[in-house]
């Protein structure tokens, strides 16, 4: 088990006042809150911070932690000294953190496990529907286009008969309906938390997110594609082939098109109830000028066109 330096995690000295502890928590919590932060280890950092604050905000736990001494280094193998907690009285049974199941082994060793009642101690008359649980799953664009079945693995803290919190893993095969869009939810009835005292189980709510696609971008039900075209296709107009997730389609490029011109293929986005659109954004590609013939062609253009693209800059 690794020693955790709660002061270091919160960027505090050991002499910090309780006010300073609170201020440091507020500041760091805003920085690492998973809803706000886009840093990829934000969630882990936020949990670590929550654990550190759980100890340092509580003068009893902080005093007990301080008693371990200052010679420990973060990450060092840790075994609590015998009778380290002698003479400390923790109020109200262990601790009160709501996400206690996710605290580290180090924390558990010092302050015990969550002080939940085990289910056997609930009064007989007590019935309650289990809680709905949530998970986010990532699918590919093609999954929504065609509809498919995906295997997902979920883990959630669960309490065993002795009241110990452990991470339970399970695998589920989930039907992904055609046309589902990012941010939409699938409800799996009865797959949430079990009910208490014969109450109904809660539901599992899966929030859908899309993996980044190498070619397409998805926004709500619309799909976007950057499509390279030649200068003459853009300027003179052309009929070309375009890949879409549903297959290759014909596209008419109108004459006088520009770099960045956006063309809409109606109804070729996600096949939702109201199907989205497919947008093609023209990207003009220049042919290379390696051969003498190609160079001659560019030189001909240079002579034919009286063209200064920097005219608006006055040069």
């Amino acid at each position, binding site marked *: 088990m690794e020693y955790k330096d709660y002061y270091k995690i919160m960027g505090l000295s050991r002499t910090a006042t309780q006010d300073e502890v609170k201020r440091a928590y*507020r500041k760091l*919590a805003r920085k690492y809150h998973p809803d706000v932060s886009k840093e990829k280890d934000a969630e882990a950092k936020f949990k670590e911070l929550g654990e550190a604050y759980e100890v340092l905000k509580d003068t009893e736990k902080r005093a007990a932690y301080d008693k371990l001494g200052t010679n420990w280094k973060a990450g060092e193998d840790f075994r609590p000294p015998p009778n380290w907690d002698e003479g400390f009285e923790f109020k109200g049974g262990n601790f009160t953190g709501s996400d206690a199941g996710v605290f580290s082994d180090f924390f558990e060793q010092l302050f015990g496990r969550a002080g939940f009642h085990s289910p056997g101690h609930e009064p007989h008359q007590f019935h309650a529907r289990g809680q709905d649980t949530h998970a986010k799953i990532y699918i590919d664009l093609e999954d929504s286009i065609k509809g498919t079945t995906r295997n997902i693995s979920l883990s959630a803290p669960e309490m065993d008969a002795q009241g110990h919190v452990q991470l339970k893993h399970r695998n589920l095969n989930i039907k992904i309906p055609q046309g589902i869009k990012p941010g939409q939810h699938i409800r799996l009835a009865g*797959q949430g938390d079990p009910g208490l005292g014969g109450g109904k189980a809660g539901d599992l709510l899966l929030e859908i997110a899309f993996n980044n696609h190498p070619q397409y971008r998805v926004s709500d039900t619309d799909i976007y594609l950057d499509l390279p075209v030649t200068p003459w296709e853009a300027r003179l107009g052309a009929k070309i082939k375009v890949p879409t997730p549903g297959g290759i389609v014909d596209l008419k490029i109108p004459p006088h098109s520009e770099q960045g011109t956006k063309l809409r293929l109606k109804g070729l986005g996600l096949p939702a109830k109201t199907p989205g659109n497919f947008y093609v954004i023209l990207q003009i590609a220049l042919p290379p000028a390696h051969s003498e013939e190609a160079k001659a062609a560019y030189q001909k253009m240079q002579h034919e066109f009286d063209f200064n693209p920097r005219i608006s800059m006055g040069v």
Partner: protein
Amino acid sequence: MTSHHLLPVHTGTVIEDDSLTLDQLCDACGVHAEWVISLVEESIIEPQGDEIQVWRFSGGCLIRVRSALRLHHDLGVNLAGIALALDLMDELENMRTQLKIMKRD
């Protein structure tokens, strides 16, 4: 092949836009109706329907209520602060999406 081919396939129901009742939303987020009502009053979420009995919420509301709950619980943000934070976060998200759309490759 792998063992999950032996597992049964679960077919869920898609939560369509404006399909959740107040009760369902409360169950889904583990909160009291009062809390959701105060979010509606602060116009943090906007249900379809005028009367509370016919309110219908979208899956987007579900995501917003859960974010609001976390902001309140983890950061101690009040309702006005939650409204501001969520709107700014939405704007940021829209701009990130726009940037992705505009950025070549």
